[in-house]
């Protein structure tokens, strides 16, 4: 399978990428690691006329401590996340989840920014950033703005990013010493989660769901129940509330809702919530 023809332009900086997006309009797409976009293009489900290659933008692939937060450059590869000493100390959940994305080859190329900007409800990293209560820094022609992760995912493969904006940084609070859990249910090692759950317990409890609807989701009913003093088992019963999970070869919507309740219970228990 070969993608439909397109033009490729290379950006050397975030500013240049934004300017190229403005120049080429809505038919342009950003190319980072390409591990979400290229498969879609090979299937001709995406046929952008221009790709803006940001793979050479150097200053967007670091993991920095900034006060109470961690700032992760959008071009940071999954492999970098899963081996990061800073994350091991201050956000081990993000490190662990990154290490469960795809397989080693995918993790050598895929980037956290690409995974979030793709907005796939079946992806693992969006749920980690949601459960952590993170935010996303995007750069457009008028400068930078910050979007809370809860406001970022707007529909199936749709985000709050405007066509001329570039995701430059993911910010998550340091959760040093916090309880956490990632439950990923699948049938084959390198597959997408049939259902996944990320829980972070750090005074308050964040719980997010993978593959339980059109977007990556926060399990808000579960979070409220935990806040109100419910046990893990009681709170987990609310895991499927308000969700409309897909049905496919792997699982019916009803089975996914069952899995969500079981996996949330396990995640809350493991996180110590």
């Amino acid at each position: 399978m070969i993608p439909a023809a397109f033009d490729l332009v290379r950006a050397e900086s975030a500013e240049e990428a934004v300017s190229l997006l403005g120049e080429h309009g809505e038919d342009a797409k950003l190319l980072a690691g390409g591990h979400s976009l290229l498969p879609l293009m090979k299937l001709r489900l995406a046929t952008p006329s221009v790709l803006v290659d940001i793979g050479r933008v150097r200053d967007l692939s670091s993991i920095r401590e900034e006060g109470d937060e961690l700032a992760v450059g959008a071009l940071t590869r999954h492999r970098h996340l899963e081996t990061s000493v800073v994350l091991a100390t201050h956000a081990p959940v993000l490190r662990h989840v990154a290490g469960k994305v795809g397989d080693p080859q995918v993790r050598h190329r895929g980037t956290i920014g690409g995974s979030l900007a793709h907005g796939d409800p079946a992806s693992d990293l969006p749920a980690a950033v949601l459960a952590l209560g993170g935010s996303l820094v995007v750069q457009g022609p008028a400068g930078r703005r910050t979007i809370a992760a809860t406001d970022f995912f707007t529909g199936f493969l749709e985000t709050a990013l405007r066509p001329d904006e570039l995701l430059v940084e993911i910010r998550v609070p340091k959760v040093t010493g916090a309880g956490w859990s990632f439950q990923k249910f699948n049938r084959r090692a390198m597959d997408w989660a049939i259902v996944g759950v990320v829980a972070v317990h750090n005074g308050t409890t964040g719980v997010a769901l993978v593959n339980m609807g059109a977007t990556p989701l926060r399990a808000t009913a579960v979070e409220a129940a935990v806040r109100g003093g419910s046990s893990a088992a009681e709170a987990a019963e609310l895991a499927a509330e308000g969700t409309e999970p897909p049905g496919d070869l792997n699982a019916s919507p009803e089975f996914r809702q069952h899995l969500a309740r079981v996996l949330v219970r396990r995640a809350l228990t493991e996180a110590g919530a």
Partner: protein
Amino acid sequence: MMLASSAEGSPTSEGCTVKVALSVNGTKQEHDVEARVLLVHYLREQCGLTGTNVGCDTSSCGACTVLVDGESVKSCTMLAAQADGCEITTIEGLASADGTLHPMQQAFHELHGLQCGFCTPGMVMAAISLLEEHPSPTEADVRDGLEGNLCRCTGYHNIVAAVLAAAGKS
């Protein structure tokens, strides 16, 4: 280069060509390629290195695994244009000029880490990358580290044994 059939929807234009300059198995290569050319097709058709196989063509099976700057990558999911400036190693680049096999190839040979052989180049490249990152893996590490490579003969037992042997743990 092979073009997609019109049944899939003809592109409105041929797209641009880009210059790529990279090292493949230590040899400098420079070509003008269509932007949409995948690395695996570039290696097979422009460089004539057909040891890298196209298997599933959907980033699942790992048959097309090569090393990009020393790390395993599925070359069906990377544009040749993205490899500009990189060092690529394919299965052809492993043995010495005198034909001495790479230790991983030798281990696959001695322990018969293959059945039909189709997944073998990708398995060997993924295994080399794995040992680079985990020089002393357990059997579980090897099985986990090869999760991105499928052997449809289900010959995993000897493949895992070969990787452990190459790591000096047989």
